[in-house]
Each structure stands twice: as C-alpha cells, then as structure tokens.
C-alpha cells in the first residue's frame, strides 16, 4: 500500500509532466481518475482491492490508458481530491464512488464541466445532469431476495428480527424492500429492526439483546456478512437453537465459503452485492472511452441469490472481502 501510494504520487507527477509536455497526444489517451472511499470497513476494503485490480489488469491491456486512484476518508476530502484530479492530474474520464449523494454532486459536476466523462458508482447524485453514466448494485433486490428466501424456508410462518446498517437512504431502500415482501405473508412477524452500523461488535450486542427479549426467533436477517459474524457469535454464546436461518448479505468470501462447504445449516444462502462492481464500472468506462463511445445512462449490476449451487462463481479468495 505504501509503495502503491508512492507509485501513485510518482505517476501523478509523471502524468502531470507528461500531459503538460505532450498536449497533442493527451487527446487520444484516456486519463482515468478513480475516486473511492478509503478502506474503513471490509466492504470498502473490497472496493479498494477491486479498483486496484482493475488498474492492474486494464493498464496491462491498454497502452493508451492511465488510471489514477484516490481514496478519501470523508466527503470534504473526496471533494478536494476530485479538484486535484481535475486540475493537476488533468483526467478526461472519472469513475467516482461518492461518499454522500448530496455533498458530492457539485464537485462532480465541476469535473464534468471541465470536459471529463463521468461515471458514478453505487450512490446516485442528487442531480443526474452531473454524470454521464450510473453503475450501481441493486439495493432493492438486496432486501427483497433475503425476505423471499426467509418466507420460503419458514413456510410462510415464523418470527424474524432484522439488523440494519447505518441510517442512510441505501439502508432504507433495503429495509423497505424487505418489508414489502413480508407484507405478503401475514404469518411472518418482523419483531424488530435495530441499527448495528454494519459493524460486528454492534451486531453482537444488538443480537444479544434480541435473544434476551424474544424467546422464539426463527430467522435473523443480518443484512451484511460482517454483521452476520457478530450474530452467529451471540447465538452461540446464548446457546439458542431456535434460530433456523441467519441471512447475511454482500457475499463476503468467508460466508460464500461456508455456503460452498455447507458448514452451517443456518447459512444456506446469501445475496450478492459484490464490491467487484467498481471493477466493472472502471472497465466499462475505460473501454468505452478508448473507443470514444458512451455508456448507457444506467447500468444495474444485479444482486442475485447465492446458494450452494452457484457459490463458486462468487468466491474470490484473494479479495479482502
């Protein structure tokens, strides 16, 4: 990582020098900037891994492509980096995973105003005219698929508790989709849904309290594979065997491995929401721009049910996530 940042700094300087000395050539080359959140939790670790993977693969493949990756710890820092990418690195294409929709809309619009082609990933901007293309995971399916699975496995009858992430629109979208499915099964009761911040420790505590409070729980929607780890530990500690299903989400490698090996009968399935979509977004953008083409306005990378049958397609042992 350190050598990587050093290389990043060097390439940034080199590109700047290069771009300044060869303005004529710069037009045919694609100088692509990638702006993503720093690896503050495993999912973002995955995003970082796949972004770097894309840089490695694509730069090897295309001589006229130059990719600069910047990671930011918060929204203001990301806005500064977008400015730098635009004025110093002189990018002509951008793939951005915004920290927040509203806060980053203007900074991204400014990059676009300078003539760069902009692909926004995962979180849409509040003003879509600031972007050329949008690539996203499917949050509705992320909530809908687990709900359908739980309803089916429980035969339409039982008690469910849910864990939520952090209070964001994305989390609301998932929860609403989950609730919408449960509405169709009056005998499935959602006992409660509390926030556990996509964090193992918090998930552990929230689950402990659920187990104290509810004597019969048939399924727990952990809504994230990291949180599922905490949920399982809390169940083990309380020695409860009434829980038949623990459903995570996002397809972390350990969880996919568990499904592949059939190690835990409570974990029969997962829903994909792979950080790999950043790889797809960078690849699609870079290859379209090299040909001088545009991307469709919206590309949804579908979330699908991961079961024992298809688990191996979702298993990436080298990814940190």
């Amino acid at each position, binding site marked *: 990582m350190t050598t990587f940042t050093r290389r990043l700094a060097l390439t940034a300087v080199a590109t700047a020098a290069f771009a300044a000395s060869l303005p004529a050539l710069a037009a045919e080359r694609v100088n692509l900037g990638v702006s993503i959140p*720093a*690896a503050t*939790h495993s999912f973002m*670790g995955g995003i970082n891994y796949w972004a770097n993977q894309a840089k490695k693969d694509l730069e090897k493949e295309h001589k006229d492509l130059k990719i600069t990756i910047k990671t930011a710890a918060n929204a203001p820092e990301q806005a500064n980096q977008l400015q730098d990418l635009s004025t110093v690195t002189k990018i002509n294409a951008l793939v951005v995973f915004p920290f927040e929709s509203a806060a980053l809309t203007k900074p991204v619009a400014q990059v676009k105003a300078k003539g760069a082609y902009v692909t926004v990933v995962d979180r849409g901007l509040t003003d879509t005219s600031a972007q050329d293309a949008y690539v996203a995971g499917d949050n509705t399916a992320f909530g809908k698929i687990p709900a359908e699975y739980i309803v089916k496995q429980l035969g339409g009858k039982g008690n469910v508790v849910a864990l939520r992430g952090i209070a964001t629109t994305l989390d609301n979208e998932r929860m609403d989709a989950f609730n919408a499915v449960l509405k169709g099964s009056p005998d499935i009761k959602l006992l*409660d*849904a509390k926030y556990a911040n996509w964090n193992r*420790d918090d998930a552990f505590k929230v689950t*402990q*309290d659920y187990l104290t409070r509810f004597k019969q729980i048939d399924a727990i929607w952990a809504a994230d594979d990291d949180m599922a780890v905490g949920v399982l530990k809390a169940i083990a500690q309380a020695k409860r065997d009434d829980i038949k299903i623990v459903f995570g989400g996002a397809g972390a490698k350990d969880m996919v491995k568990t499904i592949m090996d059939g190690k835990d009968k409570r974990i029969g399935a997962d829903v994909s929401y792979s950080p790999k979509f950043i790889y797809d977004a960078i690849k699609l953008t870079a290859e379209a721009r090299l040909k001088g083409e545009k991307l469709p306005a919206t590309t949804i990378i579908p979330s699908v049910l991961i079961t024992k049958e298809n688990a191996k397609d979702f298993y990436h042992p080298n990814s940190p996530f």
Partner: protein
Amino acid sequence: MPPEPQTPPPQPEAAAAAAHRSEAKPRWTERLHGLGPVIGLVLLCIAGTLLNSDFATVDNAMNVLTRTAFIGIIAVGMCFVIISGGIDLSVGSMAALIAGSVIMFINWAGPASGSPLMAVMMGAVLAVVLGALFGLAHGLLITKGRIEPFIVTLGTLGIFRAYLTYFADGGALTLDNELSDLYAPVYYASLAGIPVPVWVFVIVAIIGGVILNRTAYGRYVQAIGSNEQVARYAAVDVDRVKILTYVLLGVCVGIATLLYVPRLGSASPTTGLLWELEAIAAVIVGGTALKGGAGSITGTVVGAILLSVISNILNLTSIISVYLNAAVQGFVIIVVAFLQRGRR
C-alpha cells in the same frame, strides 16, 4: 426488584464498597457529589425494568456488564490521564491495532511453536506489552517532546487505525479456528457465575482505586492536574508521573483488548471505533473534571455501566424510534451531568 447491575454477587459488591469507602472523603458534600451517576443508574434500571421485565434478569445484567468491561477497563486508565490534565484520543485505534497484532502473532506462533496454548498466552502478554509501549511513546512525545496530548493522540488515532487497515488489507484479520476455540473461554467462560471479563474489570477498578487514593503516586497525579506549576515547585517529578499515566492507560487498553479478541476472534478497520469517546464520556459522566485535578474511579465504573445500560434498554424496547437512539443517550448523559454538577 431490579438487581443492581453494578453489584453482581457479594465479592464485587464488597470490593466496590471498599473502593468507594476509600474514595469517600469525610466531607458529606464530596459524597453527594459522587452520587449523581449512581442515582442516574438506579433510575435507569427502574425504567428498564418497567419497560421490559427481561431487563432485570441475571443473564441480561451479565451481558451488559461483560460488554461494559472493555470500555470500563479503558476508562479506568483514562481516568488517570484525565485527572492529570491530559487526554488520549487514540485508545479505540490502539485497541484495534493491538487486536490485529495479537491475532497475527497467535496465527503465526501457533503452528510455529507447536504449542497453541503457549501461543495464545504469549499473545495475551503481547497485548499488554504493546499497550504499555504505545502508552510510553505517547508519554514521551507529550512530556519530552512538549506536544499537546490532544495533538499527539489525534495523530496516533490515525496512525494506529491505518496500520491495522494496512495489515488487514482493508478486510479482517481472523483467528484460526482451533486457536480461536482455545482462546474463547477468556471471554465466554464464567467463574462463580460471573463472566471472566467482569472479574477482570472489577480487579482493574479496585487496583485503579487503590493507586489513585492510597498511594503517593495517585496524589501526585491529582496534584499535577490541579496545578502543574505548584507540583513542580513541590519537587514532584511531573514528567515521570505523566508518562506513567499514559503507560497505565496503554496497559488498560492491552488488557481490554486481550479480553476482546476472543469475543469475535477478528479485527477489522471498524474495531474499536469511537471507543475513545465512550471511555472519555464514562470518565466525565462519572464525575471527573475534564480539566483534571480530581476524579473518582467508582464514578468512572458507574459511568461506563450507565452508558451501556442506555443502549441495552433501547435494544430491549421499541417504543422509541430507532432514529432517536443517539438523542436518548445524549439526554441521559446531560441529565446525569446535571445531577452531579458539583464544585465549579
């Protein structure tokens, strides 16, 4: 009748009382001053029981106390640092980095040494040693380097967490299964019906109380916090005392971490997030002045328990919208602080 979470069975109760006795100055005003958090906690427990009868069960009390142990142990160390007029913002990141280092060490030493048990024990020792070393580095930078503690520890907050993220490649560091099973009892086992982390928490609190109120060192810490200049004129070795407060805190973080690792058997970039604020809040809610000079270990312990009880009650009921959880915690903290506004 709700069992009072801060007094599990006899021994700890006696201990807490002893610690309290040792802290209670003869003046009754001092006594009253320390009662704010206790009153707050009792009121909360009554409210919790009324809202959900499951709150007042032994199991729930043990869950809450075990959870509190990490923050509580760190808060005891933090109490010393704050009384001496310092602050440490890095404890959450430090705990995360120590957890990650210990996991990597045990994973490596288990197969290498051929004795998993030895590896786990060495890992536990490593946690405390690392904590002490990090604390020593803080102390030296603050005293010999003459940098504000706020700045030093703000710097290390970023450094520690970044290194953990780097070691974990942005993912998680996880203990190998058999080693994890071997280590698990440290968190999950009970002695005489009380979970191990709670025992450790009680012991750390008692030792902390004794050092603060019964030793010359404890008096020096308070003297420096009251007035550093005067302490210097009184020939107190201010630098050494200050460095030791950070080392003590580091050791507390190490102890908390060695208890924490077996819980989930993994460390990730979100481990220990915001623990520093929870620990500082526990100390301040417990009646220690943020500007230093005076404080109480008993208050700190009660403060730490109070903070976890709030979130426990919120998890056990659903009358309040989940969006307002943080607001409820904020109100309670302010009310408790109001109850014990003492000398200004």
